């Protein structure tokens, strides 16, 4: 792969730029910046290890964080190292429409905001497979566990391999592909293993800012190269500037196929079946903060991310039209990010951009590894232990979680090696992504929004759906052709049949196969005899009641800023305030509370959830039980803010 990439770069006609990229890799300042970045990330991870006292902390960060922290973490998770290469490449080839996949995620937000998010939060669902057992049965959970683990481990492999492909030309022949993969994997694995979800969230915060800053800076540098936005805009042909691609002409990149693959299947997958993202939302301090994180991410962060990851392609195309000797028309699209970055930056700046791409990888891989660990502990280790009649305490599970994180990193390296054997990484990625995700997506969707959907239907979605997906790959013209919206199955330039036709529109067939299997079998079989309270969006009031343990109190109150004292006589999870504060909070005995350090910039790092227990007459102070004091990591002398949840 490495020599292939180098060959492409050499043949692109931009030998000067390619040589400069390799030259940057031999510069001390370049390495100072890249290694400095690794050191900062490892330091962050090590620092946050102290906040892991339980699996709740390790997997969900103690359910304490503010929406803005989670938003940046989602940005960093969503932008992978492949994003810079892939979207710059697509944008170089097809224009602004190359990034249209970043701008089509809103259509399913109603069902996420009012459906899936409250269900997983209030029902304390720790993993997607766990939801499947509660909704259906243990067999469906086992199927979902297998599919999800294979999907996530494969994704770790792809991320590591893409990173190695990016660093390869810079490092030259002295580093092999697997050596690069191991180094990146070890750094990521160490801080996740010891730092858990808290480390993931805070390193993602850092990495999210680096990614966006790097991408926008590149865009500004590119505009400066042209002499301003007007000059850049006027360089580009009209069709290049359209934000959506051709409807169905080009089998290699067409709007209608990408709509079904990304706007529909991809968006549902991103919001509903991404275990890493689920855990991120569960790390929020409340459902409302989770909603804010999701909404802000899609409305504002994604369009900015689209510019950040795609601009190298736009800039490269503009450079090519102005000076084909600088960026050749024969440039391999996968190399345009590296080439444009090297043209626009100094060696130090190039080091910063390589660090940004590394940040993109690590922020995606860390989420996946933490998620794999969560699924392993929750859906493999614990159920097997229960079957054997063994009960473990949380400390034991925490140790297992850390070992699982390390194990997932190693298996991910193995997956990277096996993907390196494919000729085309993105086709391998596309195949495994489009095969594994539709059954999960269909099951979750119907499980949440259709009460009648039963266990037999869920099994059929997985089993029959997967068989039909494979049949679709074997008989594309017969099965996918009729619904392909006119997308051709032949190469428009040569007139020959494509070896993998309907690359994108095939997603519509896959969704129909999975949803169809589930719907038909459900309607032909008996209803489940199961209590579904809180597990569908038709019973969310019940879910809130179950979460609290009593009727919710939705009277509006006002947060109170107070000093605090430890009261070891209080029961577990309890806090106590004076009558006047309780009135301001509109709180009653047993209501849920959120106690947080007043310094908002901490993002909830020093906070805890509690319940109100009685009143005192000690003035403007809150009494904390021992466990609330410990879990909150509160510092002496600092003011706290107490809010009533419901």
């Amino acid at each position: 792969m490495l020599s292939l990439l180098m060959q492409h770069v050499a043949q692109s006609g931009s030998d000067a730029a390619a040589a400069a990229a390799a030259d940057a890799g031999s510069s001390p300042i370049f390495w100072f910046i890249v290694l400095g970045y690794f050191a900062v990330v490892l330091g962050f991870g090590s620092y946050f290890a102290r906040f892991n006292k339980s699996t709740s902390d390790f997997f969900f960060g103690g359910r304490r964080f503010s929406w803005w922290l989670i938003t940046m973490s989602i940005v960093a998770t969503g932008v992978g190292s492949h994003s810079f290469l892939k979207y710059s490449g697509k944008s170089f080839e097809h224009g602004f429409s190359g990034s249209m996949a970043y701008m089509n995620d809103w259509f399913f937000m109603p069902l996420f905001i009012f459906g899936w998010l409250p269900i997983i939060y209030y029902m304390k669902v720790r993993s997607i497979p766990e939801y499947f057992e509660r909704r259906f049965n243990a067999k469906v959970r086992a199927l979902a566990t297998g599919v999800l683990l294979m999907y996530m481990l494969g994704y770790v492999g792809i991320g590591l391999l893409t990173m190695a492909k990016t660093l390869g030309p810079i490092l030259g022949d002295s580093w092999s592909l697997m050596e690069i993969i191991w180094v990146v994997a070890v750094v990521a694995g160490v801080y996740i293993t010891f730092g858990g979800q808290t480390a993931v969230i805070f390193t993602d915060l850092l990495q999210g800012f680096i990614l966006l800053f790097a991408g926008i800076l590149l865009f500004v540098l590119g505009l400066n190269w042209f002499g301003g936005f007007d000059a850049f805009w006027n360089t580009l042909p009209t069709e290049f500037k359209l934000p959506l691609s051709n409807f169905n002409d080009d089998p290699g990149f067409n709007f209608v196929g990408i709509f079904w693959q990304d706007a529909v299947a991809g968006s549902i997958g991103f919001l509903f079946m991404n275990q890493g993202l689920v855990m991120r939302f569960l790390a929020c301090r409340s459902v409302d903060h989770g909603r804010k994180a999701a909404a802000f991410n899609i409305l504002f962060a994604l369009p900015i991310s689209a510019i950040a990851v795609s601009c190298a392609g736009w800039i490269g195309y503009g450079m090519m039209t102005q000076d084909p000797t600088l960026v050749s028309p024969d440039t391999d699209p996968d190399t345009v990010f590296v080439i444009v970055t090297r043209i626009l930056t100094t060696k130090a700046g190039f080091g910063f951009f390589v660090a940004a791409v590394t940040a993109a990888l690590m922020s995606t891989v860390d989420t996946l590894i933490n998620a794999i660990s969560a699924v392993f502990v929750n859906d493999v280790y614990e159920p097997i232990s229960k079957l054997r009649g063994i009960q473990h305490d949380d400390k034991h599970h925490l140790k297992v979680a850390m070992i699982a994180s390390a194990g997932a990193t190693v298996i991910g390296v193995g997956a990277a090696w096996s993907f390196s054997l494919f000729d085309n990484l993105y086709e391998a990625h596309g195949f495994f992504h489009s095969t594994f995700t539709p059954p999960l997506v269909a099951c979750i969707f119907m499980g949440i929004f259709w009460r009648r959907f039963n266990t037999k239907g869920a099994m059929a979605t997985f089993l029959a759906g997967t068989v039909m997906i494979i049949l679709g790959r074997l008989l594309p013209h017969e099965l996918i052709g009729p619904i392909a919206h006119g997308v051709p199955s032949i190469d428009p330039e040569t007139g020959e049949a494509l070896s993998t036709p309907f690359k994108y529109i095939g997603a519509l067939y896959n969704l129909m196969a999975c949803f169809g299997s589930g719907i038909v079998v459900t309607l032909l079989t008996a209803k489940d005899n199961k209590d579904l309270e809180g597990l569908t969006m038709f019973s969310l009031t019940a879910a809130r009641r179950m979460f609290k343990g009593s009727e919710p109190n939705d009277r509006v109150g006002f947060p109170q800023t107070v000093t605090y004292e430890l009261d070891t006589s209080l029961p577990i999870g309890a806090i106590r305030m004076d009558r006047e504060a309780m009135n301001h909070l509109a709180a009653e005995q047993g209501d849920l509370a959120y106690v947080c350090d007043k310094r908002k910039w901490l993002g909830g790092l020093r906070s805890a959830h509690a319940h109100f227990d009685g009143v005192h007459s000690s003035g403007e102070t809150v009494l904390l039980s021992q466990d609330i004091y410990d879990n909150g990591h509160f510092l002496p002398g600092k003011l706290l803010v107490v809010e009533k949840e419901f």
Partner: protein
Amino acid sequence: MDEFPDFDRSWLPYIYLYGVGGIFFLGGMLLVFKSGACDWARASHRRWAKVLIFGYFWYAAIHGVLIYSALNI
């Protein structure tokens, strides 16, 4: 020569995106109201319903402006 894109290339994808996508969005909104998941009596739910509608038109406006700009500026 810079060829002017025809309707299939320019506005058809936009109409499909917000038409078919709009069906999914509207279906989702109807379901959240019908199921009781969105409780109009609660101020926060009313706020979120408005945010959701805003988001649909926000993206429709972004894409519309970009297409118009590409064709006319």
